């Protein structure tokens, strides 16, 4: 949960509470539908880091997994996952 970027919730200036509710609901539903536990996310993180560090030097301390609601599909079935990985030597 902690790794999810919640800034999109607060980034937008919305004074209508129904819009705030919709934004929050979108994220909550994406999470629920993924059916992804904290352990599972942690395993995913470890695996991703292991694979990438086989090829390049990366900062293993820092990896952001973001589930975005910005490009949330109309039918509510698809949402992109963004990975932010920091390379150590360029």
């Amino acid at each position, binding site marked *: 949960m902690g790794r999810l970027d919640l800034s999109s919730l607060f980034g937008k200036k919305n004074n*209508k*509470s*129904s*819009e705030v*509710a*919709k934004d*929050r*609901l*979108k994220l*909550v*539903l994406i999470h*629920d*539908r993924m059916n992804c536990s904290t352990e599972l996310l942690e395993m995913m993180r470890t695996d991703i880091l292991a694979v990438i560090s086989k090829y390049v030097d990366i900062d293993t301390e820092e990896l952001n997994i973001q589930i975005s609601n910005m490009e949330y599909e109309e*039918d*509510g079935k698809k949402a992109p996952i963004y990975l932010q990985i920091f390379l150590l030597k360029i």
Partner: protein
Amino acid sequence: MSEVIVITSGKGGVGKTTTSANVGTALALQGKRVVLIDADIGLRNLDVVMGLENRIVCDLVDVVEGRCRLNQALIKDKRFEGLYLLPAAQTRDKNAVSPEQMKKLCDTLREDFDYVLVDCPAGIEQGFKNAIAGADRALIVTTPEVSAVRDADRIIGLLESNGVSNMHLIINRVRMHMVKRGDMMAVEDVVGFLAVGLIGVVPDDENIVITTNKGEPATAEGTSLAGKAFRNIARRVLGEEVAYIDLNTSHNIVDRIKKVFGFSN
């Protein structure tokens, strides 16, 4: 021909029991033979909402465990022809009944009734599994709130995975004046999130509190807007195409006066 319909929501307090009582009554008023099953064992409430709490002789668990016959437990509602209630046990818990027993019970009732309505308990545990065990279709009750829609989404997933794919959505306690000023999610928004066909929109209506106080289903008397919404749901359950009530009218007196004078948007 007969149908077993479970009324469910996940979250508590969104109006499952009120919906069960009113849709059941409305179906009976349409001339159907209807039995309401209170599947909320341990927290029975459908009897008080229906105003039948003084007539309970034995309950669902007594029937399942063979202590009394089904027709001894069924309470006939004298106000509405063809309407019966099978009350829940109050002193037992949800594990007192198994999904198999519930399915058998629903199938027995099917022979005698056009509609078997099962009022599901809140939650996703044993009580929910029991309530949906014999169901052909589900009515999912939600309100335009984040928590209620979230729980409805969860319930939809569980119904699908349990083979109840025929489901429809009832959005309860809609306050149009709040939707208009942007302080409540609109019906379209909720339907968009849940992607389940809509079968009813029920306005938040003081009459529900008043009729529930008295133990009379709101749908039985002609005036209340919520009562009308429940009658419309019953007709849609029967397969009729019914237009949705314009909730913008008659919601508050100022709007109505504005409308009369042409100030309304």
